[in-house]
């Protein structure tokens, strides 16, 4: 039920908003290294994910790549 509520919230978030049609020449700010969802250090993000995977029970949501390990 909670999952359905979350999915419904996401759907309504998208359906209720209008987005600006940003042209390619207007995307200079979006192309900055500090504007990447994964942060500016890919290796640090991987280290963090591994630590959280080994110390916490929740997982998923950060992409499908990466292998398992016996740390959890």
């Amino acid at each position: 039920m909670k999952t359905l509520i979350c999915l419904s919230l996401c759907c309504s978030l998208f359906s209720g908003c209008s987005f600006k049609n940003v042209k390619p020449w207007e995307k200079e700010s979006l192309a900055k290294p500090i504007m990447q969802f994964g942060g500016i250090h890919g290796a640090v993000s991987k280290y963090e994910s591994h630590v959280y995977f080994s110390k916490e029970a929740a997982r998923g949501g950060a992409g499908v790549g990466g292998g398992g390990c016996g740390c959890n």
Partner: protein
Amino acid sequence: MQLNRLSLITILALSTHASLHAENYVTVDFLQYNENDNRVAVSAPSVSAAYDIGTDFSVRADFVNDAITGATPVWQSDALTDGGSGASGRVVNNTGDYVYKNQSFNDVRNAWSIGATRRFENRDELNVGINYSRESDYDSKSISLDYMHYTDASHNRSINFGISGAFDEILVKSIANGGKYRDDDDDKSYYKDDDYDSESGASQKETSNTINLQLGVNQILNETSSLKVDAFAVLSAGYLTNPHQRVVRNYNSAFQSLGDESRPDKRTAYGVALKHIVLLGDSVSLNSNYRYYTDDWQINSHTLEENAYYEASKNLTLGAGVRYYTQTAASFYNASKEHFTDEIYASSDQRLSQFNALTYKGSVDYKISDNLSYNLGAEFYEQSTGLKATMITTGAKYHF
């Protein structure tokens, strides 16, 4: 000049909003992770490289080596021995009780991954990856595939679908064998070369498989902000028990015993992850993340994370962040030695308990030249269970 402008537009159109920023690089990084109370310490050097083959193909490879030492808390007999290890130690004191205390271990983990990206005429992307990880008692092989499709000509919205399969082998060191593997060929290597006595349960090789699915939408909101929403599912089956964890059963009876923990052989998890990033002014970005997770072990979790980056100068970028995590306990978890009797599933592993966690972090990225940059980061992690950890990372990235 016109050519330069067109080139810039082309680069921006191709690079922004894509899941992958195409570039050629080599990075060398190092992690030093330390927990309080002389628990786990990890030193982990890693190297990564990516290379573009024309405009339509990229390849990448990563390697990491984890050297793990320290101890992790498990239920143990409080018997003290005279220094011999395991069964060879002479018991000098035994009250017959059990204590939850650190058990020493050390291990080395090597993990490799390789991947390739194919970009199509409309700049849709197909990514494939292969991962392999090996420890003394754990092997993991996985393959992943994800596809990103632009839904509009301006490349402001894309949808992603990803799937991966992980196939793990676990060497189980049963307490029924005094906590020792059976080294059949006496080569001091307890894995791969040995036979496993599955009939007696003395030691055996178990397997588990995990399928990870993710479906998401990435939407550019305006010139300075983007939103990403992903729904995910993680489906695991097989041996999901932690082979190093113990539980005490029937503590208040004459039949009290210390045995291996036991978890269900299936776990189905679902969740949603939201990410929003916005540029404030010209030089500060604010990255907000939220994840909701639930599974059929009755674990529910919320994760909130806020990261900020500040371009202090052309060469210097500063970062700071905070993360809050909370989870409920698994239905078969209990910390007490007096709780379990004959339950099928039982665990006292602290990672399945109810707890909250906070992470504080900061980083410095310094661009030494157009091709070379250096980074240093520090993180402090604290759980309500009492676990505290520090994480120091440092690395260099060379573009070419």
